């Protein structure tokens, strides 16, 4: 068979294009992340957290929840506020509820102790924008993070309306006060955030912050379970959610 150069290039080009198209099409995901063996046992849930500011002892310098989270997850203490990693942090009412500016007449709100963290939204903008599905929503409601896949583009951080995510600007290892082998550290160049302690939940436990809170200001549970404490807290109290008007459906409720 004789073939001239043009013809050869055309054939090779078409062949390469077809191969690439095949690979590409094969990679197209379903709406969710992969769900291999073992997931059958987990029923869909709606994990949610209630922050009861009436019980929070933050004003008396309590930070048990934050310390528990830091220890449980090898969170570095960077020092430089520009680079710090925070999964859960203290916030004023004004910081947490930016769209409701209060003036000095609202004395009660000024000292209101709150903690802010990832809201594990129902319709998370961060999940939508991630170009590699390094973050996704599980069917139990948790917005998961896969630091193996993260390319560090920080689009999720731009998309999050709550400032819940942190980026590793430096290698975190030197800044971890009590290194534990119970949880991996992360590496520079990836984004991380609160995971509602999935590793504890999957083993039937509670998030570290919830367990650590001595005044029981943090209530955690399955909102779809009519008998859960979190359901009682949400139905029995007036609660606020951060930036609810954006339609993200946050699952962290604040009793003020």
């Amino acid at each position, binding site marked *: 068979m004789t073939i001239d150069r043009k013809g050869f290039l055309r054939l090779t080009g078409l062949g390469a294009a077809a191969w690439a198209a095949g690979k590409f099409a094969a990679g197209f995901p379903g709406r969710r992340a992969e769900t291999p063996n073992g997931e059958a046992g987990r029923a869909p849930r709606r994990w949610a957290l209630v922050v009861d500011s009436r019980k929070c002892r933050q004003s008396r310098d309590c930070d048990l929840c934050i310390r528990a989270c830091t220890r449980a997850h090898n969170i570095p203490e960077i020092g430089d506020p*520009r680079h710090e990693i925070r999964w859960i942090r203290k916030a004023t009412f004004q910081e947490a509820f930016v769209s409701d500016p209060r003036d000095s007449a609202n004395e009660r709100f000024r000292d209101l102790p709150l903690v802010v963290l990832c809201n594990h939204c129902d319709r998370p903008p961060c999940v939508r924008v991630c170009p*590699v599905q390094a973050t996704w929503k599980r069917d139990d409601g948790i917005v998961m993070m896969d630091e193996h896949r993260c*390319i560090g583009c920080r689009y999720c951080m*731009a*998309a999050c309306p709550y*400032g819940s995510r942190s980026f590793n600007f430096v290698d975190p290892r030197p800044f971890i006060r009590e290194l534990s082998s119970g949880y991996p550290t992360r590496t520079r*160049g990836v984004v991380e955030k609160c995971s509602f302690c999935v590793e504890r939940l999957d083993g039937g436990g509670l998030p570290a912050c919830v367990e650590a809170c001595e005044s029981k200001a943090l209530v955690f549970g399955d909102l779809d379970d009519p008998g859960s404490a979190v359901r009682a807290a949400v139905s029995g109290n007036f609660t606020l959610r951060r930036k609810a008007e954006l339609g993200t459906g946050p699952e962290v409720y604040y009793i003020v």
Partner: protein
Amino acid sequence: MFMFEKALAGGRRYWIWVAALLALAGTGLASYQQQLRYGLAVTGLSRDVTWGLYIAQFTFLVGIAASAVMVVLPYYLHDFKAFGKITILGEFLAIAAVTMCMLFIVVDMGQPARVLNVLLHPTPGSPMFWDLLALAGYLVLNAVITLVTLRSEQARERPPAWIRPVILLSIPWAVSIHVVTAFLYSGLPGRPFWMTAVLAPRFLASAFASGPALLILLCLLMRRVADFDAGREPVRKLSVIVAYAIVVHALLVLVERFTVFYSGIPEHREPYTVLYTGIPGHRALAVWMWASAALGLAALVLLLVPRLRNREGFLAAACGLVFLSLWVDKGMGMIVGGFMPSPLGTVTPYAPTRPEIAIALGIWAAGTLMVTVFFKITLAVRAAAVGESF
């Protein structure tokens, strides 16, 4: 096959220029090594301001890349012969600009080695995924177009018929790359500064002002240093395009301001306050933004008055002003404004660090080198081929 040997025949000035660009690119590379080793902490970015100089350059350069359509469309779709000599220059500029865009994305990433994940795990819901496809496709399109048309010029033949639909495809594609880039920003509910429908048209308007302005400057420059005269008519028509584009851009900016300030919603208004009034202690940004506005206004005046626009000196000044003004406004202003204030209402100031600037300059140098080489090859081909291109 790629006629690169034509880029190797140059005088002293040419080689000094190339050496300077390579040196700049080299320092950029050295700084990038530093960034790879220590992490993005070498930049001025922070937990609150997570995109800065690199993404600002990327956004601005996507516009430059898209602007090729402003010479391609009149020539290929409306048979506007005057642009015949410069369409290929616009397309080469687009190739260099898209390459710079991709380089800026790579240096901004925390884990650049994993960039292929975007293709391995396609995510149709993410504008960033489509942006990569759009940019890559545009690069391939322009590479094919320039290669085929330049080779036809060299052989003094008409280009093959199949290239025409490819060129026509590049027209809507050019528009799409910039719309997709705008969509990166304008769909984020948590960033009210960006979440405006007018962002995509604004991007297009600023692209069609800054790109042709750059092209005009390059044509004027080449007349002086490279003995290439594009002719008065193409430059004049391009200047009219820049004029209209900058007017439309100014209009879009003003209508946006109206919505923001008349409604008075704090979350929409605050970024503008930070950008144009500054916050005690962080006034630098305001200086830049007002300077950009002043430059833009001066450019507008120069471009709207035909007597001024048609004088080469004033035109060159106007194009420079347009370019600089939009570089600030669409680059740093637009990007950084989205992060101030943060979702918790605090303002964290941002200023690029020296390594960050070195890397950015290095990429600009690389892109300029590409433009230099491409234009040199084109002019050499034209000098060798007697007579006009098709």
